[in-house]
Every structure is written in structure tokens, then in C-alpha cells.
């Protein structure tokens, strides 16, 4: 009986892992498609975060990339349907935040924002979840056009 229980657990684990990868792939494809027709997908950032501690800083995931001058990029965020928290994507350069899918001043959310890059260099994407909730999301970097 013990053996059967172990086998069932193993099967669930294996099946769960494979279906998780499939869910991620679907979310990436869907999010890339939502970014628009005339853009080219470049990168995806898959994030799964635990909830933060009460009163503490919201956990976030960081991704670094090189962006090129005179290029318009699009940064999109899509939260997984199972996600407790709503994903927020921010673009940073060194210690300066350049853009975010959530504008705290107006309380407005955007599924994506475009970035007109004027300087080739290293930029950072941070993905977190509102109110430090646990969550799963996918960020997408797309190429829009040369400026």
C-alpha cells in the first residue's frame, strides 16, 4: 500500500511539473500575442514569487538586459489566471525607474508600455506583485521599431 501511495505521489509530481511547463509556455505565447501585431517578441521573464512579509518590501524578480539606442521596445506583463497577486513590471536603469505598468500616481494599470530607448546600455526589469502578494506572471520584451 505504501508503495502505491509513493507511486501516486511521484506520478502527480511528474505530471504537475510537465503541465506547469506547458502552462508557462501558453502564458508566454498568449502574452507575446497580446503585445500586438506589429511587434517582434524578443525575451520572456517567467516569475513565481511567494508573498512578502507584512510591512516588508514586496518580493521581486530582477532581469538584466542590453537595450539599443534609437529603438522602441514594448514591455508587457500578464498575470497567470491562478495568480493571487497582480503582476507589475518596472524598467530601471541604474537607480532610476524609467517606467512601470502600474502608475501609482494615477492608480492606473497598463498591460504594456513602450520605451523609446536613446542610449545603448544595461537596463533592469523588476517584476513584483501588488501589495506583496504571492503570484505568477510573465513579462515580455518586444521589439517595436527603429526610431
Amino acid at each position, binding site marked *: 500500500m505504501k508503495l502505491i501511495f509513493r507511486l501516486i505521489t511521484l*506520478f502527480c509530481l511528474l505530471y504537475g511539473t510537465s503541465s506547469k511547463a506547458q502552462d508557462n509556455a501558453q502564458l*508566454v505565447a498568449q502574452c507575446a500575442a497580446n503585445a500586438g501585431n506589429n511587434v517582434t517578441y524578443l525575451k520572456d521573464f517567467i516569475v513565481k514569487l511567494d508573498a512578502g512579509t507584512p510591512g516588508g518590501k514586496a518580493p521581486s524578480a530582477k532581469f*538584466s538586459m542590453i537595450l539599443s539606442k534609437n529603438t522602441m521596445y514594448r514591455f508587457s506583463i500578464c498575470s497567470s489566471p491562478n495568480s493571487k497577486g497582480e503582476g507589475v513590471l518596472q524598467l530601471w536603469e541604474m537607480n532610476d525607474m524609467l517606467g512601470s505598468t502600474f502608475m501609482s500616481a494615477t492608480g492606473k494599470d497598463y498591460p504594456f508600455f513602450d520605451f523609446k*530607448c536613446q542610449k545603448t546600455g544595461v537596463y533592469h526589469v523588476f517584476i513584483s506583485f501588488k501589495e506583496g502578494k504571492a503570484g505568477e506572471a510573465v513579462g515580455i520584451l518586444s521589439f517595436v521599431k527603429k526610431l
Partner: protein
Amino acid sequence: MMKHIIYFVLVTMVLSSCRSGEEKQAGSEFDVPDSIVNEGVLEISEEIMQDIVQNVSSPVEMAALVKSLGVPYSKKYLSPTDRVNELSTSFKQALNLGVYGADLGYLNMYDKTSAVIDYISAIKVLSDGIKVGQFFDFITLKRLAQNNQNLDSLMYISVHSFNQMDKYLRSSNRSNLSALIVTGVWIEGLYLATQVAKEADHPELAERIGEQKIILNDLLLILDNYKSDKQFNSLITELNILKKEFDDIRITIEKGEPEAVEENGMLVIIQNDKSVVDISPERLESIINKTEKIRKRLINI
């Protein structure tokens, strides 16, 4: 008896689940030779390396710039695929996988679907060689290319496959191969830009070539981790020759505050920093010549 039947069914289910999982997850059953697994202590941490590696070089952007300048498509910028079976080591396979990846980006950008099939086939051979062929959906890619339809999907699957492969290599302790692929993409992108710049004066392209100084420095930082390997050392030596050419290029930054504006209901962030690249015609010419020689040697290294 019932117990035995349940046992048999469960074992069958577990085994079949393992097999299907292997296709998607790039199973760990591969016998990875010692020579292509990271050895020893890295000079910079894996985490920092991953930070640097992300999007060091995209197979799409340089091609997009060239196309936006009105430069017509030309096959002469591409690396020939006829010698793909001669690339026998994982080092050569990974480096050339990057080269062909950049070429595939160029072909996709110009919608040259008939030529795409040759490059997809070459990429299949090389990716199978370094045991990452499972990330490329070659059947779908070929079908899309042959039918000359849904070109956006062709581009998406191509780029996504490269990203999947890159993630897998980095997560399975084979960042060295990932670094080689990135190097291949970068050198081929630079080769394309310099060949176009050789034929006609394009100030924007010259500036973009000068900016590769920043990317080359990052690339060398990554490759330096593997300098104990003879082939990597040879690659680093070649790239250091190229780096010298970039040394006197000055990049100055004019600071400005970013602006957030709404255009047709969409949020647009305008960066008001500006970089100015100072590259003389003589320096550009020497970079063009050096890139040509180095790219030729690298793809035959």
C-alpha cells in the same frame, strides 16, 4: 491480484509520464561530456553572469536596423550552411549555432522563407549536437517556412526556441555553451552591420557599430570565466584583438529626465538621456576589416 493490477497500471503511467516529460523538459538522461560542463570556480558568480548574458545580443535588432536603412537583402552577408556537418565539437557547434541564429533573424526580418529552411536544418543539426534540439519545433518551423504563411509565428517560434535553449543551458550548468551561442549571435550581427557599412555611408550604423564597445566588454567578462579551456582562450584572444580597435571610441552621455506620455491610450516612456558616439571613419574602416577577418576565423575555429 487486484493489488498487482493497480501496481502495473501505476508503473506504466509513471514511466509513460517520464517519457513525455523528457521531450518537453530536456531530460537529464544526456551524457554530457566533461569538456562542456562548467568546471572549477567561476570568476564572477553564476547569478551575475546570468544578469549580463540576458539579451546581450538579439538576432533581430541588428537586422531590423539594417532593414530600416533601406538596405536590400543579400545572401552574401550570411554564413554558408554547407559545412555544418564538419562542425564536430560542442564548442564549434555552439558558436555556429549563434551565427546561424543571427542569420535566421536576418532572413526572418526580410521574409526570405525559402532560404530559412536551409538555416533551420543547419540549426537542427547543431542543436542536436549539443543536446538541445528538443527545444526547436522543427516540424512547425519548416511547415510555416514552406507555406510562406504566418511569418509572425515563424519569427516567434524561432526566437522563443533560442530563448528556451539558452535558459536550459544556463540552468543545467552549461553556461559556457550559452556564452558561445551569444558570442556567435553577436559576431554575426556585427559582421552584418560592418559589411553594410563597408558598402555605403550610414552614420546611424557607424554609431551602432561604435556602441558595440559596451557589449564586447560584457561579452569578454563572461568568456573570461572559461579562459582555462584552450578553445575559449583562443576565442578570447581573437575578441581582445577586436576590443583594441574599440578602445579609442568615446561614448558620452547627455543626461535628461524620462517622460511618461499617453499616446492613443498607450503608455510611452521617452528616455531623454542621449548617448553620443565618436567614431572616426578611419576607426570604422579598421573595425570593418578586423571584424571580417575575425568572423572568418571564428566560424572556422
